[in-house]
Each structure stands twice: as C-alpha cells, then as structure tokens.
C-alpha cells in the first residue's frame, strides 16, 4: 500500500511537471509579449532510453530503462542594465540516483559593478552555479551538451550535487584585450545535498574558481578550474570527521566551423577523510585517533565532434577515470580487500561514438554507444555490490531533447 502510494506521488510529480511545462510552452508567446520586455522565460526537457549489456545506469538499464528525464524552467529579469534576477526550477529523474523531486537549481541576483568596452566585473549572490570546466554550467540542458551523457570521469553523476550549485556568493570579471578575452569567476558557499546525502553529512564552506581564456571569439578556449568541497561527515563511531574533495581541472577546446576538439584533464583529484577520532569512553580511555584516509585519482577525456551537415553531428570520445592513480589496474586494492573491491571497480575506460540530429534549432535527437571497461563511476545506489558488477559492458542511449 505504502509503496504504491509513494509511487503514485512520484508519478504525480512527473505528471504535474509535464503539465506545467506544457502550460509554459503554450503561454510562452503570450508571456513574451505581455510581460515587460526585460523578463525572459526559457525551458528545457529531455527523455532518454538506455540499454546496457550489464550493470545499472539510470534505472534498470540492463533490461532497458526510460528512467532518465530532465525538465526545467528558467526565469530572468533584467531589472536595470546592472541588476539581474534569475531563478531556475528543475526536475531530474535518473534511475536510483535522482528522483525527480522539483528543486531550485538557481536563485540569484547578479550585480554588475563596472562595465565598459574593456570588460565587466560584478557579484552574484544567492544560489549560484559552479563554473567547473567547459560544460558544468549548462550540464542540465541536454541541447547544450555535446552528448547524451557528459564524460563521467570529469562530470561524474554520482557526485553531481557536490558540483552543481552553492548557496553563497561569486565574484566575476571579464577582460577584453587585443590578444583575447579573459574570464574569472570565484565563488564560495555551501553546496546542496540531496535527501540521501544528508544522512552522510552536512555541507561546509566550499570554494570554486575558474580562469578562462578565449582567443578569437572562442576559436581557442583554455581554462583552469580549482575546486575545494567540504562536508562535515556523519560516520559513527567517529566524532566529527571531515570530508574534502579537492581538484584542479585543465580544459582546452578548439572550435572550427565544422569540427571541435575538446580535452579536459584532472591530474590528481583527491578525496580525504580527516579528523578520524573515536571518542574514548570517559573518563579513563583516551580518544583513538586514526590517520587520514586519502585517495588520489586521475581523470580525463579527449573528444572530437564533426558536423557532417548543418543538422547532423558525429561524436567520438575516449574518457578514462582512475580512482587511485597509484593503483590504476586496481590489482593492489583487490588484493588488499580479498576481492571484495574488485580491480575493475577502480577504473573506467569509455569509448563513445554518437550521432546527433538537429530536427529543428530547438529539438535534437541523439544516439550514442559506449564501449566500457571498468565500473568506477557507476552509482553504488544502483549497483550496491561492487563484486556483482560486470567489468566489460556496453551501453546504448537514445534521447530526444527540446529547449526554448
């Protein structure tokens, strides 16, 4: 009874959202005319079908899953040339990793403090998006992604909420020079945890910065991102352990008229558990202090896209992720855990080929094939037993997406 009721509620949520979006779509031309010209409404929707040969990705994909859909509505109001208000409400269903609960993806006010031909500087206050690498700011919007699934080594879906948005503030600066444009964003705040993550800790002050250089209107784009996420963990019997995720990301992209080449590389993303202290039972037994637990990985991908015609684009990508850069094959970990953590759960190598058809400027249909070795970025929520995952697997995905 209970299961059925909650299932119905989930269904209602999705239905209500679909209705709301449909309503927005119908009303949009009216809104565009009636509301002041400084208000804009944008939105996006996508629905995918995923089939894997083994393992679960966004639902029961081994049987064929249509449990990946994204909806969102974005509002902005340019109150004055230097003050903009913006908000975005989104709903995302992604199998066992995301349950379609509507949430506020963005809610901020952007103050331009200085603006001129040479550049712009300002401040964003509120729930701001994390400017990580080349794709993070638009990762919700299927039409703005290069593929159905972003390279998981960098844009991991199981740590998605840690890199999506923060409640806090951001400063930004743009400089236009004779040799190119420079963009700097630096932000701080607390990231937003979902209900399951809230059981493992509370978000602590975290930091993000990105320096980007664009030459010749974006023909060449280079970026360096620094990220430091902190969590006050809940992990009995430890008293107040801290979790930290720290990495630097190097990004490069070359854009020609009919093709683009993109690469991003995180040389040493590091996850650390510190302050691992088990309190002694007062008053006689002292606290037991454990050394920090640290794991340093390595991730990166190279991606090429080619426009076969103005409406057909092909994609080829190689994406690789190592959870422990000192144990790339996973053999040491497997031996140390007597096989409970199999070697293949320490890495993933993903060859992807894809094709995108732009049906209209606002509608895309995509298909892609992933040839995979390893399971490091699979969600443990969907694949609770690492030992039960298959090391070699294939994934096919099909997606229709729309945005306005």
């Amino acid at each position, binding site marked *: 009874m209970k299961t059925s009721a909650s299932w119905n509620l989930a269904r209602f949520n999705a239905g209500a959202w679909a209705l709301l979006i449909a309503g927005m779509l119908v009303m949009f031309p009216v809104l565009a005319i009636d509301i002041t010209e400084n208000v804009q409404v*944008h939105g996006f929707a996508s629905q995918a079908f995923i089939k894997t040969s083994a393992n679960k990705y966004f639902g029961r994909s081994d049987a064929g899953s249509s449990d990946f859909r994204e909806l969102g509505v974005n509002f902005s109001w340019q109150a004055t*040339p230097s003050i*903009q208000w913006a*908000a975005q409400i989104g709903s995302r269903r992604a199998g066992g990793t995301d349950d379609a609960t509507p949430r506020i993806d963005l809610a901020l006010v952007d103050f331009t403090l200085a*603006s001129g031909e040479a550049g712009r500087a300002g401040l964003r206050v509120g729930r701001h998006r994390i400017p990580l690498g080349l794709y993070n700011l638009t990762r919700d919007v299927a039409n703005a992604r290069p593929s159905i699934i972003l390279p998981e080594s960098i844009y991991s879906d199981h740590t998605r909420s840690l890199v999506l948005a923060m409640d806090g503030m951001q400063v930004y600066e743009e400089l236009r020079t004779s040799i190119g444009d420079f963009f700097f964003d630096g932000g701080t705040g607390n990231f937003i945890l979902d209900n399951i993550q809230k059981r493992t800790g509370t978000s602590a002050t975290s930091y993000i910065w990105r320096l980007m250089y664009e030459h010749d209107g974006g023909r060449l784009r280079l970026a360096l991102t620094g990220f430091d996420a902190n969590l006050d963990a809940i992990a009995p019997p430890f008293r107040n352990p801290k979790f930290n995720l720290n990495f630097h990301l190097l990004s490069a992209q070359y854009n020609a008229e009919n093709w683009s080449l993109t690469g991003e590389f995180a040389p040493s993303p590091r996850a650390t558990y510190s302050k691992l202290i088990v309190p002694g039972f007062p008053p006689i037994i002292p606290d037991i202090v454990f050394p920090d637990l640290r794991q340093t990985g390595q991730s990166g991908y190279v991606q090429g896209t080619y426009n076969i015609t103005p409406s057909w684009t092909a994609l080829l990508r190689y994406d690789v992720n190592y959870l422990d850069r000192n144990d790339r094959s996973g053999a040491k970990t497997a031996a140390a855990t007597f096989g409970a953590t199999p070697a293949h759960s320490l890495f993933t190598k993903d060859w992807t080929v894809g094709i995108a058809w732009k049906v209209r400027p606002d509608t895309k249909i995509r298909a892609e094939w992933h040839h995979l070795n390893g399971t490091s970025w699979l969600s443990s929520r969907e694949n609770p037993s690492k030992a039960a995952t298959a090391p070699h697997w294939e994934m096919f995905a099909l997606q229709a997406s729309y945005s306005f």
Partner: protein
Amino acid sequence: METKRTRRVGWKRSVAAAGGLVLGLLACSSAIAVEVIVNSDVAIPSISQSTLRAIFTMHLRQWPNGKPIKVFVLPEDNSVHVSFSKEVLNTFPYQLKRSWDVLVYSGSGQAPSVAESTREMLQKVATTPGAIGYLPDGYPMEGRKNENVRIVEPR
C-alpha cells in the same frame, strides 16, 4: 539548315544556363555582405569587432552613455545570421548560441531577441530605443519608416 541553327542556339543556351548555374552556386556559397544597424538614438559613429562581439555574445549590456543595449538577431539557421557571425564577428553561430546558453542557465545574462525576418529586424531596430541588429548589405531601407535606423561602420 534550320535544324543546325536551332541546334547551335540550343548549345549556346545550355552554356548560358550552365554559366548561370555556376554563378548562382558561387553566389550561394560566398558570404552575404552584412551591415550593422542601430536605432538612431544610439550616438556612436563606428564600432570595433571586439565590441560588437561583446555585444552580440550578450556580455556588454550598456552603451557608453549608460543606456541599455537591446540586441536583435535573426534565427540561428538564417543565412544572414550565419554570414554575420562569420564575417562580421569572426565566430560561428554555434559559439554565439553557447555563449547565450551559459549566461541564461547560470543566471548571469539573457539571450538576444529573435527577429523572424529581415523585415522584422528593420522594424524592431527602428522602434526599440538602444537597439542593435544587422541586415544584408544594400537592404532597401528607403521608402520605409526608417529614419529611425542608422548604419554603423565597423572600426
């Protein structure tokens, strides 16, 4: 005799037709010259490529006098928009779209207004204070209500 002449005329016709076709194809593949237009209340004599790019990527939002800039573009697949992106801004339509998407979905900017046709472009720029847009070179602007539109020279 009669047949021969007809045949010769026919041959000339085919050559002319083929020539016309080649010229037509060349015209299609070569870029359309594009002019930048502003509402007449915008008091700038000329504009640099880098400033134009900052305006059309929606990063620069104010004219030197502090008045808001209203940007109009033609649809993404319109050949005039493609030429404008490539020849005037020295970038590509998909790059402009990416720039607008980033601003919109990070809450730090807005997308430009879309004029569905060159006719609507002229009308919108003429009637919106602070407006900037573009039209194919030599677009007939006389005889319409466009004392409100000026052509801006690239610098």
